[in-house]
């Protein structure tokens, strides 16, 4: 592709990429807007009304602060536990094959059980409050990152292990500068799946738990026949997910900058 600047930023390419990204949502939104214009249906209100209500409820009415922010906090707290636990146990299991083998039936089974099936059990132990919500988010979203970390650590090159042994690299440095960066591309792939899982679990536990959060808002609106507010909850969830995904990608680009640069470099060298 042409137009590549000296600093490697491909400006026309970026604009083109953005347009390519945006065309489908824009087309769909326009289609829905005109198709639903003047809708008299109770279940499918016009997009115009939904957009106006979204502004009213979430932005002007402060719904972001009262319902979205608590959800976000919950999500981040549960997800943080999942990431830390996944990387910690994943590294241990990746380094000590015996432990991985011993734990495999459990990890395989736990991964195979649909997260939502754990909801009644979790409610039995933790009730319907924060403890249940956080433990569900953390527990269910741990598995993808755990399994990917195991794989990533296990596939660290034997030469690199020998280097760290012969140069007497300290255990913490081996983890921080050896195994963790080596496994990072795979850890991130797992973290991205874990994140999607965490968002889904968050919505579900909020629908079934004590009042509060966007999940509860959507369910409550539905049960009280407030169909337009219900739709606004879904719109916000869409924005919310998209924004978090963007944030995630920025973070990944920063932490794995060496990886992307290396890949770009090797591809550039082959032409």
């Amino acid at each position: 592709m042409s137009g590549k600047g000296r600093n490697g930023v491909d400006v026309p390419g970026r604009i083109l990429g953005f347009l390519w990204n945006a065309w489908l949502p824009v087309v769909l939104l326009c289609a829905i807007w005109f198709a639903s214009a003047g809708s008299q249906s109770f279940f499918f209100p016009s997009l115009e009304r939904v957009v106006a209500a979204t502004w009213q409820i979430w932005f002007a009415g402060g719904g972001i602060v009262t319902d979205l922010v608590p959800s976000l906090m919950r999500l981040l707290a549960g997800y943080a536990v999942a990431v830390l636990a996944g990387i910690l146990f994943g590294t241990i299991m990746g380094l000590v094959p015996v432990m991985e083998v011993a734990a495999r039936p459990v990890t395989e089974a736990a991964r195979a059980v649909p997260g939502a099936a754990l909801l009644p059990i979790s409610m039995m132990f933790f009730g319907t409050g924060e403890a249940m919500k956080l433990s569900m988010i953390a527990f269910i979203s741990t598995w993808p990152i755990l399994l990917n970390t195991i794989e990533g650590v296990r596939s660290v090159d034997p030469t690199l292990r020998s280097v760290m042994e012969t140069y007497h690299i300290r255990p913490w440095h081996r983890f921080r500068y050896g195994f963790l960066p080596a496994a990072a591309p795979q850890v991130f792939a797992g973290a991205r799946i874990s994140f999607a899982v965490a968002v889904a679990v968050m919505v579900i536990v909020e629908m079934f738990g004590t009042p509060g959060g966007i999940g509860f808002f959507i369910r409550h609106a539905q049960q009280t026949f407030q169909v337009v507010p219900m739709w606004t909850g879904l719109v916000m969830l869409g924005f919310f997910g998209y924004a978090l995904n963007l944030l995630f990608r920025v973070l990944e680009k920063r932490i794995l900058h060496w990886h992307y640069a290396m890949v770009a470099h090797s591809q550039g060298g082959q032409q």
Partner: protein
Amino acid sequence: MTRSAPRTRSDFHPGPLSPGAPMAQAETILDISDVSFSYGSLPVLRGLNCRVRKGEFLCIVGPSGTGKTTLLQCLAGLRLPTGGSVVFNGKTVTEPPAALAVVFQDYSRSLMPWLTAEDNITLPLRSAGIDRDTRRERALRALEEVGLVGVEKKYPWQLSGGMQQRVAIARALAYQPAAIIMDEPFASVDAQTRADLEDLTLRVRDHFGITVVLVTHDIDEAVYLADRVMVLSGRPATVADLVDVDLGQQRDQIETKAMPEFARLRSHIYRLIRRPAKGGVG
């Protein structure tokens, strides 16, 4: 970026070997005594003996698959011999000795692609608890020593293969070991780079009086570099001969290789290596 002031040779590494020191009188630094190794029931090495003197350049040569790398792993403490022992600096090797640095064949896998050249070199020093300024100074000097100035902020994959192996050698030098072990270090670079790296290794050895044990399958390379060549052959591998190389301290890619003695040693080792194969051992 500040360039360091000129300095004398001796402030980088203590105790450079005076050129032409009588090798035979130097003390033993690495004692390979009756070393055998088997993978399960498959014997690979049998009864190897060699005393490596301080400051000596020993090349271990043998055809592919003779267990050269296995021997090297035993010397580096990455494997325990199944028979006999390796003694380094007066201590039996049961784990990688602290005063030993290893340069591996595959530079692309022995350097960390997520660290710059400088950080690759300083990581072992950091683990040893050496302060930041000293680390940086040692890294820059080691890079200068291997002929790489101004690449300390580059990532390994931004450098050519030969340059990457130079960074790996710089990492070994900055570690200031008593001995360096090299596993076919120049096998993955082109011929010209290979000759350059060979001369670099010789220069570094002269400079610091460091002991070098280098494994190679290339007979010319072994003779060109070594004070002594350990010839491995057979299955399991035994020491076919320990050949003294009398080609002087100063070697030159053209002149040394044109010497009659070079040709003689070369054919001598070549015959030693070829002999078992002719007998149809298998």
